[in-house]
């Protein structure tokens, strides 16, 4: 360590304190240098004077009481609550509670949109989503006049959905799922596929309010009520289905 470096680092020394590391080396250099020794002595004397005066800066006798009052006045309690909320443990607990509440809300919402036999309808939607179009027989009729055509192919009790009454039908078929007949037809609206089945055949309890379900990029609306359960579906989202249903004539 050079004398210049030692001279600089000596200012980090305070008399009565244990010197550490490089300051200790600087002190050793100062021991062999008269000028540095003199500067160190002057510095120590100055520090001692200042520290002596600083120690006379006594806090007021009632400082603790003042601080307590000041803290109360500046609202000590709310910061405590806020600061506790910011601790990792509390944040983790809050996140856990929020997640739990979120799961509960999810299940409630899901249960609200559920109905008996939903799985069967979803299976029908999955089957429909895999159709190529060639499965249907081409016909030119309307939903209101489809009953006889379906009866000839083994489906009895067809009831045209009032919302789709008179809508052109461009193809139809009767197929079976779990040994039960389902009437299905292509509607000339929004490239839709509609189908109808006897609700009791599939254990479906048609919802009292219409339900919308999604599967494989397809969306289906289940018509409420009745022994004959009607469903209309197309490729799209729930929002698109809501828009579509809103545009249909009211029965």
């Amino acid at each position, binding site marked *: 360590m050079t004398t210049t470096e030692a001279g*600089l*680092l*000596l*200012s*980090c*020394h*305070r008399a009565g*304190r244990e010197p*550490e*590391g*490089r*300051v200790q080396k600087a002190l050793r250099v100062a021991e062999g240098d008269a000028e540095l020794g003199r500067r160190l002595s002057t*510095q120590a004397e*100055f*520090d001692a*004077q*200042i*520290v*002596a*005066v*600083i*120690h*006379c*800066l*006594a*806090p*007021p006798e009632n*400082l*603790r*009481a*003042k*601080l*307590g*009052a*000041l*803290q*109360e006045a*500046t*609202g*000590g309690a709310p*910061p*405590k609550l806020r*600061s*506790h909320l*910011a*601790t990792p443990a509390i944040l983790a607990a809050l996140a856990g509670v929020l997640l739990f509440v979120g799961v509960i809300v999810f299940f409630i919402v899901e249960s609200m949109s559920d109905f008996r036999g939903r799985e069967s309808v979803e299976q029908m939607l999955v089957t429909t989503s895999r159709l190529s179009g060639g499965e249907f027989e081409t016909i030119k009729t309307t939903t209101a006049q489809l009953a006889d055509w379906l009866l000839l192919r083994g489906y009895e009790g067809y009831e045209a959905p009032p919302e789709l009454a008179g809508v052109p039908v461009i193809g139809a078929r009767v197929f079976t799922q779990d040994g039960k007949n389902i009437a299905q037809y292509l509607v000339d609206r929004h490239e839709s596929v509609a189908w109808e089945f006897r609700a009791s055949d599939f254990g479906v309890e048609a919802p009292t309010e219409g339900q919308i379900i999604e599967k494989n990029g397809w969306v289906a609306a289940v018509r409420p009520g009745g022994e004959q359960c009607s469903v209309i579906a197309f490729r799209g989202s729930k929002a698109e289905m809501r828009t579509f249903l809103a545009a249909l004539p009211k029965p």
Partner: protein
Amino acid sequence: MRGACVWSRALQTSPQTNPSGLAELYRLALLLTGHAKTAEQVLGETLAAAEAHLDQVRTETGRQAWLVQAIRERCLKNNASSPPAAPRLLRTDAPLGAAPAVLPIEAFLLAQRFHALPEPERSALAIFYLDFFTIGQIAELLKMDLETLADSLTTARELLRRALHPAEDATQP
């Protein structure tokens, strides 16, 4: 008293182990602000904010470092809004370390001189004169290397000496 209890916990010291902890912090605030009322205000505000932070610091030195840093930041913020007034000259007929009756007056004048020092020299010297930290810890606290801290301390001492003894300074060539 709630405030006293919080301070005790904040400093994590008992009167037996560190009776002067609160006094030291008060002195630091006073040296950095140059005003007793403001120093109390700074202490109070720091105390109000201290609880949650200090719960997460395990060592006594860590707690002291947090407190000193918080006090310093508040003082600097306060100084920015109310810069130091022109320092009054220290009475030359009462040397430093004089009779106890005189000392408190001189001590508060010293605080005013301290307050007039520039940053970071003021903080460096004020923390250096506390009984809390080693020189390495002070450098870490002020985010300086040892040479920069040494330079700051040299400058601070010189400026303070000139402010306290202007007559001596005038006689020097």
